């Protein structure tokens, strides 16, 4: 009994930094769940990745102006992310370039500016911090930021949910009725950037996408409606956060990759055993059809 306690609960009971990290993971998962699900549904999975990278120069500018200050870096990151999303959106709309290509172009420019800024004005340690985050170093300010972003995201999703689902399913039907589908897309992109910024302090820009996408892709093998996908993705995110922190504490691993790898484990397990077109299911069904 004590072994179980020592493994699963002890770290959080003993250390406040572990409790903060856990709360941070909970907050992140609440926002990242729906964001990830809609990114998958809109076939924008890789755009999450590009958005994560594009946040970097903004965070670097924030760092140059105010030092290692989370609000400044977050604000900078948010602005950079929205600018990239905005320009990419305009290019997609007015030129033949497709959405993924225009996002890729702008994020690469943005990333290069970011690396340039960090390497001329900061140290490599700072760059590592932005790229990989440090969930064990989460303070009150960042916790507040993550909780606010999660609250705002859930509220915003509640408001745009019907429109966003209808627009994902069949944009032409809505637009023919005079609905402004573009509004939902824009609000959604802003939510993506917000959650990315909220995640980069804890997990870093690279790992934050992991907590967004892996639970969503895992949920795809179990759930069959948007709301249940979101519920499941959020639950997987929460569990991954908790289990990743436990593993990172007990086995002395870096926490960000540990969390994302647990989420990756959930994904691989779902891919194998999920009842909605999981591999075992497909194999069994083929056998059934043959006999």
């Amino acid at each position: 009994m004590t072994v179980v306690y020592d493994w699963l609960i002890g770290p959080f009971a003993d250390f406040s930094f572990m409790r903060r990290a856990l709360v941070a993971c909970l907050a992140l998962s609440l926002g990242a769940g729906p964001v990830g699900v809609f990114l998958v549904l809109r076939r924008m999975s890789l755009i999450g990745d590009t958005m994560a990278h594009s946040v970097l120069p903004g965070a670097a500018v924030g760092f140059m102006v105010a030092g290692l200050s989370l609000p400044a870096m977050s604000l900078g990151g948010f602005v950079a992310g929205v600018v990239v999303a905005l320009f990419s959106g305009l290019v997609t709309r007015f030129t033949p370039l497709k959405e993924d290509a225009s996002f890729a172009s702008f994020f690469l420019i943005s990333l290069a500016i970011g690396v340039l800024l960090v390497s001329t004005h900061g140290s490599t340690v700072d760059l590592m911090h932005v790229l990989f985050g440090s969930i064990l170093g989460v303070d009150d300010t960042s916790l507040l930021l993550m909780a606010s972003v999660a609250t705002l995201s859930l509220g915003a999703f509640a408001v745009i949910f019907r429109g966003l689902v209808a627009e994902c399913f069949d944009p032409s039907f809505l637009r023919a009725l005079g609905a402004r589908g573009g509004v939902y897309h824009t609000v959604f992109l802003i939510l993506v950037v917000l959650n990315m910024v909220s995640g980069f302090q804890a997990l870093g820009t690279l790992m934050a996408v992991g907590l967004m996408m892996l639970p969503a892709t895992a949920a795809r093998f179990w759930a069959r409606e948007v709301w249940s996908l979101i519920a499941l993705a959020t639950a997987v995110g929460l569990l991954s956060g908790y289990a990743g922190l436990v593993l990172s504490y007990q086995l002395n691993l870096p926490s960000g990759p540990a969390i994302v790898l647990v989420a990756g484990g959930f994904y691989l397990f779902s891919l194998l055993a999920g009842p909605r077109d999981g591999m075992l299911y497909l194999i069994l069904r083929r056998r059934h059809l043959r006999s």
Partner: protein
Amino acid sequence: MPALIELRDLTITYDRHPAVHHLSGQFRQGSLTAVVGPNGAGKSSLIKAVAGLHKPSQGEVVFHGAGPRDLAYLPQAAAIDESFPISVFDVVLMGHWRRAGAFRPMAGAMREAAASALHNVGLDGFEHRPFGSLSAGQRQRVLFARLLVADCPLIMLDEPFTAVDSRTTADLLRLVERWHDEGRTVIAVLHDFEQVRRHFPETLLLAREAVAWGATAKVLTTENLLAARAMSEAWDSEADICRGAA
């Protein structure tokens, strides 16, 4: 019957290549019109422009007495992500958008309307099935149920019967005829001339320009069809960039 939709010198281009070229004419209120023509004749482009989904590069679409909000549009089957995780009932409920919008609750009467629409397309008991698990014909029935719920005076269908089995086609054609009897204006892009002759009183034969437009029997003549094919082939080899009215 007065004109409901008037096309004034309409030109629709993609990358400056005209898909529809200086087309003028009108769809009368309560008319049931088939839009036919060779591949690449601009049929889909035309109804997308009328539905407000593609901006014409020249000319305009004028509505008389109906707004774009009165227009229900059924896209080509390929435009809908069939693997989207949504239940049949939720798809049909989307038809209420005009009344419910993004926020108003869909309760009571609206749910009953959706259930009765499903009944009308022969899909009783399919409410909770995932849309993606249905056959192509059943999916098309669901989308027609959504049109029923939308209850719009103006209905535009882009290749509604492509890849749909013959029994479903017959059932859905009965709905189209019912809409016509109810005085709604229906415009459909079609391929099957036999079907058009039997069910659609009016036809627009399109080959980027109107080859003929009017009563179906007068439009679908051998000469006109040959002319349409010749025009469409000429377009392909000839100057592709619009140089204004010829």
